[in-house]
């Protein structure tokens, strides 16, 4: 059998977060957490699922050139932190060849992309990434 290097269940159970940015919202105080948590700052353990908005502002970014084995052929990788409706999310920044041209607080949209794959035979891992709406070239 083909060796599987990455875990399928580990990916599968996070599909709501990877595909749709499903956060949790505290029923008591309304705080929103992404990634989800079991206990709120306020002590409550009751949450509702809450999808983060798919548009927001870029807070900061960097371009990583020394990548891990899973991403060798995708380098360099740009990463950004975006504010999506008041919740800060970390993700890859794509379709932006010159991120240094982005202005402060550049508008980003959440897109659905491939993240990595388990060799030529294993599963393909998908997930959200951040894409500047305009201005990086």
């Amino acid at each position, binding site marked *: 059998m083909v060796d599987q290097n990455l875990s399928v269940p580990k990916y599968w159970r996070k599909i709501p977060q990877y595909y749709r940015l499903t956060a949790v919202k505290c029923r008591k105080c309304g705080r929103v957490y992404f990634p989800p948590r079991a206990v709120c700052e306020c002590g409550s353990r009751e949450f509702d699922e809450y999808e983060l908005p798919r548009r927001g502002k870029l807070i900061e970014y960097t371009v990583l050139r020394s990548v891990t084995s899973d991403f060798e*052929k995708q380098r360099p990788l740009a990463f950004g932190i975006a504010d999506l409706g008041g919740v800060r999310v970390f993700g890859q920044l794509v*379709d932006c060849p010159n991120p240094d041209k982005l202005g402060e607080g550049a508008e980003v949209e959440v897109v*659905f992309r*491939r993240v990595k794959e388990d060799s*030529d035979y294993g599963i*393909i891992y*998908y997930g959200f990434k951040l894409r500047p709406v305009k201005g990086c070239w």
Partner: protein
Amino acid sequence: MAVGIVGWGAYIPRYRIKTREIAEAWGDDALRIRDMYLVEEKAVGYIDEDPVTMAVEASRDALTRAGIAPSEVGAVFAGTESKPYAVKPISSILIDALNLKRQVYSVDMEFACKAGSDAIVNLMGLVKSGLIKYGIAVGTDSSQGEPGEHLEYTVGTGAVAYIIGSTNLVAEIKHTYPFASDTPDFWRRDGSPYPVHGEGFTGEPAYFRHIIGAAKGLMEELGMKPNDFDYAIFHQPNARFPVRVAQMLGFPLEKVKPGIVVDLIGNTYNASALLGLAKVLEEAKPGSRILVVTFGSGAGSNAFYIETTDLLPSRVKLARTVGEMLEDKVYIDYSLYLKYRRIIRMIHG
């Protein structure tokens, strides 16, 4: 019961390569290539884009335009000929990416470039029968063109999605007409990385015979003539074929041009004619009559008679337009093209 389009969404990647750039790499005469296909440049998906990711993007915009809740969708059909998995559906990924309910009919369809339009026809049947309220039909492809072979000049990347239903229509699909036969003009064997085609054989016996057969059949059944249509949209393997088939059918150039996108993004296979339709919907007035004829090698066509409604104009700006995406572009050179399309042969992916 009137059935038709409730919402639509398109997706074109941001990167482009000029056909001239490809011609220079292979020592071909760039002007001759341009003259053959009338394709200036084509859309190239980034390294992390595939028919699944583009299908998600187009479908999200389609849902936004339709203004319906994902839970109201009863079926999702994905037409493609470039599935990232030989076995494992795109449609099931769409269920979770779009947050559809679990009680959804879902399947991937393959008939070369025609399957996306078959998804529409099938959903119309499900809506008419009352089995579902809304369905999502997707045409999505990032097909393969062997480096150094002529397909490389035209094979583009893109996706389009339509929400089919019977209420709140932006366009009614008033009639459909199929035309198909066993005509091996273009194929890709199982496990083979690149399609093979019969050059000139893809023309008369394949593209033209089937499109004309479907278009004429549809007009005859309806008693309509080219004059009765405001727009005519045909499958676009290059920019020459749709113009020529329009001439053969008797449509003037100005009725075909608005639906041509291949010159700027290449042949997007299952998205091709349906992306042209998306672009036309962005400009069409209420009451516009549109002929759409798709084509898939192997070979077959579906012809559609579509009429827009008063609801159309207000939905255009609710999501990314084809017009905007055609403008939103970053040019890359041939080496980046090879990298992004993962054409460089590697031991490990």
